[in-house]
């Protein structure tokens, strides 16, 4: 393992220190428990949006803290969901009196820890709601399993709900919008290489030069199946088809297309893949109205990509376009 780190057990704290120094006016970061909060939190009278999850997916979630997006993020250890006391501390720091919405990716650990935290802060008299996102179509869903994972859709969820909260929407509205996003967003990813978790020291799996993992998550979990490597046209179609079939996205659907790098895939390849995805969508008569291209929800240095499709309506589009000022996403301000 070759990484620019001092000690695998302090990597998250060390990185948070650098992040705080990098964004002085924007973020206020505490280390124990680890919380990344808006510098101007709590914003009085505003619904507070809080998320979090294991580290190693940067810029998710800390890079999305700021005006028009998250009020706070709770970074867990690498690939490990945060603990309830982190979430409790975050909520306490950013609660502006109008209630708190927790956005949780659907992983057993995340759900259980946020659930515990929600009970604790509710006991303190804070109106707290939880919306769980599970947009990964690679995982076959059933009431008997842990269900789908939360992946790329999380970025869009945080942006849209954050914009609503910033514009003064109440907790009910924020929760409704969050559920609308979750109901209309689908994702799927592939991995060309494995990430190396710092405290493990070895790649999470091994792939031959001509293999890839299809239906990968963002934690170095192996995917659903191992397939022979193929050209970009084939790979993008393999990502897009199950997404389109799932919701389903129909002709004349208006969508946001999010083409995401898992970290190690360079922008050159990502733009190339994005172009193919746009072409395939155009062929199906689906209108791409908004797009996001870049490494926004990653898995350390893993090479690979994911596609996320969100069905838009005027309300969601306007919230997507609303100003945002975070470390990783910024416009209109």
């Amino acid at each position, binding site marked *: 393992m070759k990484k620019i780190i001092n000690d695998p057990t302090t990597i998250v704290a060390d990185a948070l220190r650098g992040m705080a120094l990098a964004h002085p006016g924007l973020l206020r970061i505490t280390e124990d428990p680890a919380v990344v909060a808006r510098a101007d939190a709590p914003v009085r009278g505003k619904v507070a949006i809080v998320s979090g999850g294991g580290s190693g997916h940067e810029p998710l979630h800390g890079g999305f803290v700021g005006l028009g997006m998250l009020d706070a993020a709770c970074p867990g250890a690498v690939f490990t969901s945060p*603990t309830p006391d982190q979430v409790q501390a975050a909520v306490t720091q950013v609660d502006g009196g109008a209630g708190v919405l927790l956005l949780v990716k659907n992983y057993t650990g995340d759900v259980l820890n946020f659930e515990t935290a929600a009970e604790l802060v509710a006991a303190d008299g804070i109106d707290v709601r939880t919306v769980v996102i599970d947009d990964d179509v690679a995982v076959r869903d059933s009431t008997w399993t*842990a269900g789908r994972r939360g992946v790329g859709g999380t970025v869009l969820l945080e942006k849209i709900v954050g914009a609503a909260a910033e514009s003064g929407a109440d907790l009910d509205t924020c929760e409704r919008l969050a559920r609308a996003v979750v109901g209309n967003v689908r994702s799927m990813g592939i991995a060309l290489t494995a990430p190396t978790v710092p405290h493990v020291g070895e790649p999470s*799996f091994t792939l031959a030069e001509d293999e890839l993992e299809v239906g990968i998550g963002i934690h170095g979990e192996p995917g659903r199946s191992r397939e022979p490597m193929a050209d970009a046209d084939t790979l993008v179609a393999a990502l897009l088809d199950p997404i389109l079939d799932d919701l389903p996205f129909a002709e004349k659907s208006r969508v946001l297309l999010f083409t995401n790098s898992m970290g190690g895939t360079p922008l050159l390849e990502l733009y190339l893949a994005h172009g193919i995805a746009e072409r395939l969508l155009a062929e199906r008569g689906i209108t791409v109205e908004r797009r996001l291209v870049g490494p926004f929800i990653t898995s350390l240095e893993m090479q690979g990509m994911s596609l996320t499709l969100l069905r838009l309506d005027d309300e969601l589009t306007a919230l997507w376009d609303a100003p945002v000022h975070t470390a990783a996403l910024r416009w209109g301000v």
Partner: protein
Amino acid sequence: MGCDAGTVAAAIREAAAVITEHRDELVKLDQAIGDGDHGENLKRGFGFVLARLDESTPDTPAAVLKLVATTLISKVGGAAGPLYGTAFLRAATAVGDAAELTPELISTALQAAVDGVVARGKAEVGDKTMVDALTPAAKAQGATVAEVLRAAADAAEAGAESTVPLVARKGRASYLGERSAGHLDPGARSSALLLRSFADSA
């Protein structure tokens, strides 16, 4: 010597040592069908437990178990943190304010613990989780504390082994579908390790 707070605390210290010793094994098991953090997370959590026990030893078995519970809940994260935390919390509640644990109390505590895990995680036997190790362990009976714990450890080890051929339906391994078969579940393995270390301490 009875099973008082000091004895329970000593057993917990021993369990922490066992977890540390098996950290890499648990990481490897979790890497195969999960995300590779189970050993590291438990090691970190039990490290904090040791630090808190160094500060002060609580004066009832229940208080020791509660200290373990709150520490695991607040420091571990992941699935195992709240699940093991809940297990220890329910066990603490089950033993009440008894100054010493009897064989019966141990049995009751084990059943309460597994009920807590099931309540939180909604897993059933056969889902390839720690529940497969804990459920048979909770049925353990015996005339002495040591006997109950030995029976529980034996059952947990068998239960853990039984996860190997299973297809996971809960937790991160479930994303693998059929590919999860043929692997030992890391949480079932850590449950068996914990119970064996308790048995060895008794």
